[in-house]
């Protein structure tokens, strides 16, 4: 299926990507080509097939519910663009 520019803008929004009009045209063309490639899948009848999400078709191993980590807050927060009093700063969300 070919995607048009408005579809590109819609999925860019879902992806939290800012896309210029020029880029939307560009991506519409390449995404359409990729979807055309991907649609070769539809030639195969898979009605009786169970989906395979993961190569390990078994439940994940669980660990004991115990505290194993120590507090690394300062180390991790040192990487953040903006922090204050142990909190990550972002633009105001609620007026």
């Amino acid at each position, binding site marked *: 299926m070919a995607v048009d520019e408005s579809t590109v803008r819609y*999925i860019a929004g*879902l992806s939290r990507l800012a896309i210029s009009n020029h880029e939307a045209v560009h991506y519409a063309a390449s*995404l359409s080509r990729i979807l055309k*490639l991907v649609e070769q*899948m539809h030639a195969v009848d898979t009605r009786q097939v169970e989906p395979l999400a993961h190569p390990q078709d078994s439940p994940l191993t*669980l660990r004991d519910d115990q505290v194993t980590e120590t507090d690394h807050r300062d180390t991790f927060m040192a990487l953040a663009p*903006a922090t204050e009093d142990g909190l990550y700063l972002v633009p105001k969300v609620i007026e």
Partner: protein
Amino acid sequence: MNNFSLHSLSTALHHKTVSAVELAQIFLARIEQFSRLNAFITVDSKFTLAQAQAADQLLQQTDSGPLTGIPLAHKDIFCSKGLLTSCGSKILSNFIAPYNATVVERLNNAGMVTLGKTNMDEFAMGSSNESSWYGPVHNPWNENCVPGGSSGGSAAAVAARLAPIATGTDTGGSIRQPAAFCGLTGIKPSYGRVSRYGMIAFASSLDQGGVLAQSARDAAMLLQTMSGHDPKDSTSVDRPVPDFMAQLEHSLAGKRIGLPKEFFGEGIDSDVAKTIEQAVAVLKSLGAIPVEISLTNSPLSIPCYYVIAPAEASSNLSRFDGVRYGHRAAQYHDLIEMYERSRSEGFGEEVKRRIMIGSYVLSSGYYDAYYIKAQKLRRLIADDFQQAFKACDVIVGPTTPSTAFQLNAKAGDPVAMYLNDIFTCSANLAGLPGISLPAGFDQKGMPIGLQLIGRYFDESSLLNMAHRYQQQTNWHQYFPKGYQF
């Protein structure tokens, strides 16, 4: 001497013919001398020499191991504490990893010395190393050609002997394809063999860490230490790691090698086809028995892969939001705009494209037609392998349909680029181990890779077969001109 095995380096270190510091200095000097390859993103000689000094101290004691003091390079996808870990992306171009990936930790604990972090396609999305924010890597065999990707920096570094060995990761062929393009032995183990903790995620159900080496024997040595259960990665499998080294010399007599007819059809370069036929003849002379098999659905592995991998990527890469680490845009008015601008400035074109494909195939109305459909095909592809392994022990074929291409030749055409992985990505979809080893050269003098695919968790058979092949041939000992020591 241009080929020195890990074993010979280890012997030299233990006999004090060379110190770990001297060895590190030799390779650091080469990295600088051949910086035009752009194989490294980060080199921190202070960091390296401190590790080498510690290794020299260990070597004075009796508890040093076979890898103590041996230098290596890590793909810049593995978090290494105190070093920039960029994943080839602008969005992580200021990210100094606060912890070590398990792979890095294990190799550090073995006394290995990190020479630096190698260049790669951004977030491992690419087959040419051209999507890196740090610029393309050049192939030492022909500097106008790509080294392959996404582990292109690791491949170029080992091919030019800027490092004796390197780590890589493989989501759809990202170890095996660059190994083929650069004349190296590259192994992607079974999904779950090597911990993914601290290995920046691209597609979580496909990603697997592995090795780019000069020989199967070297690869076995490193993989031995990298492998094994890690409680920090719930998908790492709690199964004993076999002694890979002990099985290298096993006879190939009676081993059935499956030749999938889909891997020998049209679309393969004639030099590649001829070379793979010759390699099969060598394996036959070693006692292996060729059998014809079919992987009926493998031609659809690319369409299947380019739904599943982007879907998982779009989810994994949602964590890069400019809030807790990484690039944040300078200007924005509200939270959404901050996310959007930070991500748009931080991600390159190919990464954005894959995020958008992923969002599309997971979006309401398309989920069943694309994502579930691809998962169903994934089962058919995995089932094909199970059927095939009833008739054979190891699957043999080319790693790639052609040899390394020129820089910029495919950069503008994502679909052409994706088709590079046509023979490699089915092993990732099924979780199986695969190895690429040098099998000859085309008429332009570029290396050709032979691929072996094994049963789940049977890396031993691949390393064994590759090693026996390398005892019989010397393709793995060829060396690119102009890079002599």
